[in-house]
């Protein structure tokens, strides 16, 4: 693929991640990412070419640890809701920092169930968080792959074309 084409694809793909409108598949849902992710993209420059990838992989690492902790915590006989809440808080913080808004929103719901000590609600939320996390992870991975391809082909990431 040509660099220009790849760049275009990147732009379109990125836009699609922000787009709120995805009626045909999931009804009316928020985009995978919000404006915060754009902030990250703007932080990436020649001096820091892999910034997004780095942050995102840190996010993955962090989230996966938290998700497994959460899974474990919710499997216990007596659930320590404080602990669960702390985990969810962490996850909410990092997801909001990279702009993974669906995960973030799931966390908000999750915390309210924690407060109610609603085990069933928490478990449902955990599933939802996991699902949205996997989703955003695959999307982000695809995006980063594309970026790497562009860079490998000698192009630059057309961040500006996103036109904020």
């Amino acid at each position, binding site marked *: 693929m040509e660099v220009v*084409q790849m760049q*275009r*694809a990147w732009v*379109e*793909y990125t*836009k*699609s991640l*922000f*787009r*709120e*409108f995805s*009626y*045909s*598949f*999931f*009804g*009316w849902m928020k*985009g995978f990412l*919000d*404006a*915060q992710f754009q*902030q*990250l993209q*703007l*932080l990436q420059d020649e001096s*820091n070419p892999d*910034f997004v990838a*780095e*942050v995102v992989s*840190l*996010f993955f690492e*962090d989230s996966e640890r938290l998700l497994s902790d959460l899974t474990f915590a919710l499997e216990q006989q007596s659930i320590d809701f404080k602990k669960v809440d*702390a985990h969810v*808080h*962490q996850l*909410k*913080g*990092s997801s*909001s*920092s*990279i*702009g993974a808004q669906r995960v973030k929103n799931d966390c908000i719901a999750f*915390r309210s169930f924690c407060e109610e000590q609603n085990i069933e609600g928490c478990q449902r939320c955990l*599933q*939802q968080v996991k*699902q949205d996390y*996997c*989703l955003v*992870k*695959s999307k982000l*991975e*695809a995006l980063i792959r594309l970026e790497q391809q562009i860079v490998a082909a000698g192009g630059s990431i*057309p961040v*500006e*074309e*996103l*036109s*904020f």
Partner: protein
Amino acid sequence: MASEMENEQMKDMDIEALPSMWPEDIDSSKPYVEKPAGDQDMLEEVTIFEEPTIVDFHHLVELTNYTDRGSSQLTHLVQRWEYKHANAVRLLREELDILSKQREEVELKKLEILEAFRFEEERYSGDKRPISILDEIIDLYQDIPRRKRDIIVQSKRVNIDAEFDTVAYWKQRAKDLEKLLEASVHREQLLMEKLQESLQNLEKQSSPVEELTQILKRADNFLHFVLQNAPVVMGHQDKDLRYRFIYNQFPRLQEEEILGKTDVEIFSGAGVKESQDFKKEVLDKGLPAKREITFETELFGSKTFLIYVDPVFSKSGETIGINYMGMDVTDQVMKREKMAQLREQIAVQKAKETELNKTIHITEETMRAKQMLATMSHEIRSPLSGVVSMAEILSNTNLDREQRQLLNVMISSGDLVLQLINDILDLSKVESGVMKLEATKFRPREVVKHVLQTAAASLQKLLTLEGRVADDVPIEVIGDVLRIRQILTNLITNAIKFTHEGKVGINLYVVSDPCYGKAEGNHQKSSGDQSTTTEIKEDKLKLSSQNCSDRKGFHSKKYSEGPYPDHLPSDEPQTPVKNGNTTDGDEGEEPQVPGTTVWLRCDVYDTGIGIPENALPTLFRKYMQVSADHARKYGGTGLGLAICKQLVELMGGRLTVSSKVKCGSTFTFVLPYKVSSTCHSSDDPDDLSEMADHDAPLEDVTAGFFQFQPRTLGSLFSSNGSTRTQKLLPHGIGFTKSHKLNGISKDSCSFPSGNVRLKETTCVEDACSMVEVAETLSEPESSFSHSPERDYENVVCRSQQSQDDTNCKIPNGTTNCNNHTESSREVGLRANTGEPPGSCQEEEKSVINSQCTSTSIPRKPESKPKPKILLVEDNKVNVMVTKSMMKQLGHTMDVVSNGVEAVRAVQSCCYDLVLMDVCMPVMNGLQATQLIRSFEETGNWDAAAKAGIEPSASLQDGQSSIHYDKRMPIIAMTANALSESAEECYANGMDSFVSKPVTFQKLKECLEQYLP
């Protein structure tokens, strides 16, 4: 004694079959049985009764003489009287008989005694035969009727002491008998006297007529007593229906005014004739009858009478008249009618209630069912979307061919079910009235483009997708963009589904008003077949040339930017078929008045298989497809169009279709939109999010044509006429043209405020050659889209930098600069679009823009000592992001991960700024801040020591080697959770707070405020 006898006789007597005229318990011997006990006034009243009596005695006599009833009454009375007297006579006679018999016996005895006396003499000579006289006498007495016990009979036995059959004996005996005889004679005399007395009594007794009169008088009195206050009228009318007798308690007319006249002669009005006829009927039939008649007469107003009429027969059986009795039942009738009315009302009410209850019940049921459906659908959707999205993730992993195929089937099936559920949800929302329309600003061009883009992304056919938006369509309108997108997506998806070659497209243009739209819609519907075909053909013909002309068109369009007359000619030939467009051209002249409604018509056309005419009526029905065959071939739920129609109608528009089999279909909807009104301080969070989410490129603001050719690679490649053309241009031309634009806008801009602003900009331009900045920012998309422009942008940035540098001594220099940029850009845009100032969300954009520019702002001059910043944050991702942002802003930071570490860090080092997360493990931000503040106040770390933080090595005896001459700024970083309220932050000694996630802008503002 006589009365007693009479009573006994009365009991024995056969009572006549005819009823007595007065109650049977009244008889002559006891008049006024029911007379109030001891009421002496009674009699007086009775006499008063006679006064209102209007009796034609003469006629009464006639009546009694000539009518059956009268004579029978009379006969009855006479008979009774005769009986009574016959009885008395009989009794007296009997008594007389008895007396004469007794006399005979006494005489006989006397003779016997005389004979016996003779015999005595004979016996005296001869032998004497003993005769038991007493026995004989006793026997004799036994024949006398026993009932006459009151007659004293001498039954004394004659006792003779003398010896039997001696002279003394006989002598004594003769004397005794003499005494008996005397007594007997005396008794006879007494009886004779009595008889005489009785006879005299008999003579004294009254004549029958007199007695009858008395009886009648009593009856009359009784009747008057009873009828005293009865609301009745009684009367007798002869066979000519002339009144012969009338009794009226409340007479309005004098007797003489009534008697001898008929009803009709007496008074007139409604009901009179009826009563007369009724009486006649009774007279003719000879049978009594009752009827209720309502009178409406001058005499006594509106009154209802219950009338009982019975015929009167002569002795020969002829009817000679009628007796009639009327009772005023007006009140009763009124009450009855009222009751009936009430009953009717109640019945109606009840019926209504039942109906209502039924309806409520049904509605509730329906609602519940719909709610149920919605809930169910929702419940199904969540896990299903999980399945589908996980499958999608799975498809990104390494799979072999077969696995991939299976997965694809899985995903597409899942999508289909999701689609169905979404459709059901939407439909039930619309139907149950839950669906709420939102009014947000949006750009129709963008919507058209996005819908086409999305469709192109999943396009698997060789189809051309195109969209045309007329120039007069406002840049921004207000409506429910999501729903409009949904409608468009649905229609486009549908069109693509049924089109195998050719093209699918959207035309969007203004129509004058709903009537016009409707009329046109109808027109198109009726002549739909022809019009669509021609349209499509011509479109096809033009297809090849269109790109070329488009390009030309957009050259000028791009830089004339808006509905300027010089642009129209180049646009018009594109759509010559549509009547709408020419009209639109005219309309384009009139500017959109802010806050008014504009009707936009949207045609979604295709060159597909078309819809047979007979299928058109059912097209928009739920679960309807053109045929079962179609359903099998094309799939789908058949809900899409129903939803579209309902949504369009919900928004106050109309959805119509015209089609020709094998040629294609055109779905048209006309919807009203509000044109966004004037200036508002765009702080509306909705606007912000909308802009952020929709990431609308500015080029969309005016681009009127979009095309997606079949060869494009799905969504990865979207062609946009304007961008493409732009690219071919050396940017120098663009630049000069832009200059021209400013000139034009100065002249044509009709908004005074705009003019003022414009002048301001000019000043800025002159002062610091900001013209480039203004121009470029007005079209950021074009400048971002390719490298030469980007270079150019760099220049801009550089110029900005230089400006920054020159202004750098001024506090908040950058902000100032931004303001300039913003205002100039605004003007530029306004000039472009011809829209009222501040009507669009450019301002928000500018914020992002300014953020964007700020990225390239160089570090602060190195001459200043580098401020020391401490970040207290436990989340690694957050740390990384914040750190990187700080780096971009030219700062480095120390990072610690909890409150305890923060206190330690502050103990060992002096910071110019602390960014403190609130929610942290070990020790939270609030507590750490408290400890630091406590140190600032007291100069020692005792509080920290108490809290369990051991003083670090650098501290001697809890005294810090570092001295703070001023308060250390501590800024909280909150996640906006409930537990982290701003007030709490302030209360714990924090100076300010930044909400997470942190952004450039927030960080920058914060640094500007706290790092001088």
